[in-house]
Every structure is written in structure tokens, then in C-alpha cells.
């Protein structure tokens, strides 16, 4: 079976939550439950505040309720989180293909099945 992954270019995730709501609406999930969840890291200044070097980033993480949008994909569409990601920082595909573009700091891949 092909292993699918979600590649996150985390440097661009703006924390907008579109992936979460898109997922919830696609799957009819109750409020508060989601197949992908954005976590926030920071914000805090690293070292002296005057250096203006901040820890301030987001990372969307697929949850156990992610079903890779299988029925949606069967209609030729991309997973809804990928389509609606406002920063276009999500990519879906076979793990082997995605692995080839794992070439930058903060890029993160989740195996989905």
C-alpha cells in the first residue's frame, strides 16, 4: 500500500486555522474536534529582546482523525487542508516523493497511513 504523507513547510504557516475548519467541515466533526491541529510555538524572545530574534512559529499536525480525505481524493481533488491552506505550506503525496523535497530547515513530514 502506498504510504501517504503531509509535507509542511512550517516556516510559512501563519496560524490561520483554515486547515482545521476545512477539515471539520469536510468530515462533519463536532466543534473542538479536528483531523489537523495547528500548534503555536512561542512567542518569546530568544536571548536579549533587543536582538529581535523571536521564537514565533506554528506547526499543523495531522491527528488520528485524518483520513487523508480519501473520498475527496477519489473525486480528483486534493485534501481539503491542502487546498485551503492560506500560506500554501501543505503538500500531500506519496511519502517517497515528498521526501525528495525535504531539503529545508523547518520542513516537516507526517506519515498519514
Amino acid at each position, binding site marked *: 500500500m502506498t504510504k501517504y504523507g503531509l509535507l509542511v513547510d512550517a516556516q510559512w504557516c*501563519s496560524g490561520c486555522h483554515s486547515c*482545521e475548519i*476545512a477539515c471539520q467541515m469536510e468530515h462533519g466533526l463536532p466543534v473542538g474536534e479536528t483531523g489537523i491541529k495547528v500548534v503555536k510555538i512561542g512567542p*518569546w524572545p530568544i536571548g536579549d529582546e533587543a536582538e529581535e530574534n523571536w521564537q514565533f512559529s506554528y506547526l499543523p499536525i495531522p491527528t488520528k482523525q485524518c483520513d487523508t480525505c480519501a473520498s475527496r481524493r477519489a473525486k480528483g481533488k486534493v485534501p481539503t487542508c491542502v487546498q*485551503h491552506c*492560506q500560506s500554501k505550506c501543505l503538500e500531500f503525496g506519496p511519502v517517497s516523493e515528498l521526501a525528495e523535497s525535504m531539503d529545508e530547515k523547518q520542513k516537516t513530514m507526517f506519515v498519514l497511513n
Partner: protein
Amino acid sequence: MSEKYKTVEHERPFKYEEGDLNVTRGCAWTGPGCHLGCGVIMYTDQEGKFVKCEGDPEDPWTEGRLCMRCLDAPEVTNHEKRLLYPMKRAVEDRGKDKWERISWDEAYDLITEKFMDMKEKYGAESVVFAQGTGRDIAAYITRLAWSFGSPNYTGFLSGQACYLPRIAGMAATTGAPWIPDCAQQFPERYDHPDYEVPEVMFIWGNYPLKSNLEGFYGHWVIDLMKRGMKIVTVDPKVTWLATKSDLHLRVRPGTDAALALSMMDVIIKEDLYDHDFVDKWCYGFDELKARAAEFSPEKVAEITWVPADKIVAAARMLGKAKNSTLQWGVAVDMTREAMPAGQAILSLWEITGNMERPGGMVVAPEILSVAGGWGRELLGPEQEKKRIGIQDYPLYNFGFAVSQPDETVKTIETGVPYEIHGAWLQTTNPLACMGADPQRLYKALSKLDFIVVVDLFRTPTIEALADVVLPAQTFAERNGLAFISGAQRGSTINKIVDIGETKSDMQINLELGKRWNPDGWPWDNVDEMFTDMLEPTGMTFEELQAVAPAYQPIEYYRHEKGMLRSDGQPGFNTPTGRIELWSNFYSRAGLDPLPYFEEPEPGPGSTPELMDEYPLVMTSGARFWGMFHSEHRQIERMRHYRPWPLMEIHPETAAKYGIKDGDWVWMEGPLGRAKRKAKLTPIMDRRLVSCDHGWWFPEGDPEKFYDVFDLNINNTLPWIPGKSGFGSNYKSSICKIYKVEEGN
């Protein structure tokens, strides 16, 4: 379809089937939601219920993306608390939960009787027509007001302090509205052969990822950063974008004009301006140079909290850039002297020759000019003369034909120069959102004999003031034209569903207009009306539905080609034909023709004597993802992300006042106070607190107006506009903070 427009190829017609679902392509312009007008794909099930809203992958603006609010649009449309039928309440029962369901005919009869009676007794000007945030209703509510005979179309927002100051300022000094060039005017977007990515974008006075200006999709900033664009952020807070900026200028709220003038001083003294552009196309450079010389970076650092070396660095980045653009926002308008602030900021891009240059600032293309009103000829010069504020504030002749809001409130209170007796409030909730000093506004509006409110949900404004309520529709329930400000393109809002007895704003306006002035409303239905509006495009409403979005072909350097003036001459549409750095219109209006800075009042620079009691600088209107202005408080999926109104404060400042994360606090200024939950965060300047706006609790008691008078931060803000009548200090004030406790 007319040859005049460029469109994208659609794989399917605008309505099609997908399995068990019916699918409709359309545009989300609104409510609910903002004034961007994203392309959407709406799904209805076999029962005709609106079940899903997605982004339209064929929309060049969004390429299928959508924010959480419109993804959740079905929850709003289908919400159990929607207003579903007209209601009335006896005037003596205002504020009481004593509503009676009535039919549309009864509602129209009652409204017509009351307003016509006022028109006969006191003149049509005695009825004020007000709307809220910029939406597609402007064309129709203005036509309703003007065909009734009232010149008093307005919004209850002190100084019209949202975009209109910049629109009027740009019109007066350059003859056109300018937008940052993100290739939004081309269906090919960034791939258009003439487009160039800006070397640097300044993000000034807004956080575009959360708050979308009309026609500006915030995440274009990210698209362009990925294409190599650098950013400079002008924002008192450390935002996520600020941490990705080459420079972050943490400006004190309300001091942007000083910052801009100081950058200008550096650019001129270091000879970084565009001599050729200034010589050929600008007027009044020497005067501007002399004014800027009064703002040395050292002096301005004291005023703005921005260190002098950063002011210099920002000026150099702009001055040395091949091309640069400006994404500015409402913070520029929400200061009392908004006009000179906007003038100062835009002048930076003018003298550096970034106007009409690829990746710079471009004149917003316009296809239909109805955003500022439609059918003004129906009003006539006699009534136009009576527009409130036009005598004192001649700049209200630029941009939109609105009455001056602060003067309008005063006129309601005093009956001078004439009495106001009625109000038509259409999709506006001024007691919760845009009105300054909402308790004063409440008292003023309470004087009126008859008030109609049109909205989607019951609101504090409805509970406190309405005598008749008419239920409006969300974008999924109606047809409409979407020619949105910014780089205007032609889209249609396409109906997919019926909810209760609701009617669209346009239908309500058309049906009442036909009763009041049949000659002014010669259409049998809204689609016919839309087709007539579309006459200049050569398309019918149905034709546009099929091909939308339609783009007007646009080129750069239009000022060189005689494309910005109606006489076809090169130059800009101003008295001198140049961009007026020294404004003839301002001079004639008795205003300073050059940009200037005045300390925000109250504030540390203007009222030092108040700082002992109110030691913190306060700013409000912080945007967050899931809610738009006073909307969405009852939308569970959105409220989940922001259950309570927040005040952001630095942990050290909070400790000083004994406040812990999550504490309920009062933020109190000289005029009043509002409740917020404290959120401790190091992104704040230690001298500053910031909070959300637009709060009320729909779950609360309607007879307490859903706690709006405890929650509305505008309790702290007075109705005082700038000298031009534009601008007001919504975002720069002072306050003290203390915990909410039993008995206080």
C-alpha cells in the same frame, strides 16, 4: 460576452452537480464576513440545505484558499438564531424583549407611513440612512436614501475613520485611489509578463493576514515573500510577520505621521528620492522638503518610540529599493489627524517614484463606480446642500457622498440646523462596533421617533433601539453584483438557498424604493436591476454569472499615457495635473496643504497631566482570525477560538498592576471603561495595552443589550474628528487597568 474583459477558463458552468450535491460557484460578499469577496464553491444537498463552502480553485485571487470564517459560512446561514421574519415593537417598549412578528407588507406599510410622514412634516433630510462596514449594499442604500430625498447617508463611525479618510485624501492629492501592486489586477497574477515582484513591501498599520482591506487578500504577502519580496512592519506589537521582517518599527499608536515625515527627511537629505519622477510628476516638493526637515530622526524617535537608527534604516530600504509597495491599513485612519498621516505616508512612495510602477502602487482599476453610491441625480441640488457637515468640512466632497458622522450625532441631539426624526440602519450595529461613546449614541438615537434596523441576527442595536426589524440574507441566499474596491473585477454573488422569510438587502431596498419613488426604481426584480447597473460593461447579469470573474485589461504608467485624466492629457487628475505633495484642495479648504503631525489626544505627548491617573497607552481593534467586527459572536465554531474579549499586556506590566493571565479587568479611560480578559504576552510594549473590539454576548440578556455597555471598548472614546472632518482616535488613547471585582 463583451470583448472588453479578460476572464479565466472555467472547467464547469457556474452551477453543476457532483454526486448527490448541487454545486454553485460564487462570491462571498457578505455578510457574514469581510469585504474581500473571495471566490467560493457552495454545496447544497438533496433537501436544498447549504452544507459546505469551499474556496474556488479557479479564482485567481485565492487559488482555492479560504479563511475559517467563510469555510464555516453554512453555520451562519443555517443558524437557529437567525432573524427569519419581520418584527415590530412599540416605541415605548424599546429595550424590552417585546417583539411581535409581522408580515413584510405590514412592515413596509408601517415604515412607509412613518418615513413619508416625517418627509412631509420635517423634510426628507430628517431621516438618516446608515450602513456598517463596506459591503455591496452601498449602491442600494444610497439609492434608497437619495430617491427618498435624504442627503444624510452615513455610517455612525466618528470621522468616518475607516478607509474613507485615505480614499478622500488620495482623491484630493492625486485624483485617484492607490493600491499595492500584488498583480491582483491580472487574471494571470504573478505570471503576467509586465509584473515585477516588489523588492520591499511596508506593512503599515494593519495585520493583513487577519484583517483584509477591501480587495486585498492578506496571504498575497506570503506569496510574494516566497517570490523574494522583503517586508518592513510598522506595528507596535511583535507579530508573526514582524518576526519575518527585515525591519520592525514598533511605533507608538497615533504617531505614524511623525514617523513618515522623518523617513521623508532622511530620504530627501540622503538624496534617495526619484528626481525624474518628482520633477515631472509632483507638485510642491520644496515645501514638502522644508516640512520634513522639521522631523529629524532623533526628535521623532522620542515621539514615536522607534529608535532613530531604525527610522534611517527604513528610509534607506525604501529609498534604495528598485520598486516598493505599501500595504497600509485602518490604523492610519483611526487617528484624529488621519488626513495628514495618510498624506505623509503615501508621499514616501510618491517621491520615490513608485507610483504606477510594476510592484509599486497602482491606481485601482474601476469598472463600475457604484461603491460610493448610485443614483445621486435622484437627490437634486436643493437636498444635497442639506447634507450634514458639508459646510464645515468641504473635503466631504471627495470620495463618498456621506454626511459627517460626528456632526450627524450632534444634529440628532440638538436639532440644529434641523431636526432628525428617523433612522434606517442597514447591516450596522453601531452600539457594539463602530460608534464612539456608544452610550452617547444610544441616548441620541433614542430621541428619534422611528428606527428601522435590517440585519442577519438580533444585535444590541436592535434590542436597544429598533421599532421595526427586517431580516436580511447571507451571501448564500441571494444574488448580487460584486465589484469590490481595490483592483475591481466583475463577480456575481449567486443564490443557492432560501431561509425563512428573509430578503436580500437589495430586494428590500428595491421594494421600498418602488413604494417611495417608483420612477427611481423601474425594475421588477433585482436581477433586472443588476443588468441595468451592468449596462456600461455590455453584459447582462446572467452573462456575468457565467464568466465571472471578469477583469479589465490594465497597464502600467497610465499617467504617462493620458489614461488617468478624463481629458486624456498625461498626468494625474488634480488641479495641477501632478501628484500634489502640497495640496491645492487642502489649501482651499482652509487646511494645512502639507502633511503634519499632531500628538494623539489624550496621550503622553498631549495630556501629560492625565498620565498619573491613566498611565498606559491603549490601542483597540486588534483583529483575530474567526470573527469580523461585531459578527460571529454566536457562531460556535468561531467562538471556540475566541471565547472572550481579550486585552493583551506585557507580563511585567501586568505584574505591576497585580494582574494574572486570564483575570477579568476593567480598561478605563477618561470617558469610560470596558471589560476584558487579560492575556499576558511578551509581544507587547511595556507601555501599551491592546484589545479586541466589537464585543457583545449574544448568549446574554437582550434587555441588557447583551452586556454591550460593559464590553464595548468604544466607551472610552469620544466623538471628535480631525480638522478635516475625517479621522478619529479609535486606536490611540490612554487607560488605567484594574481587576473586575464584586462591587466595582
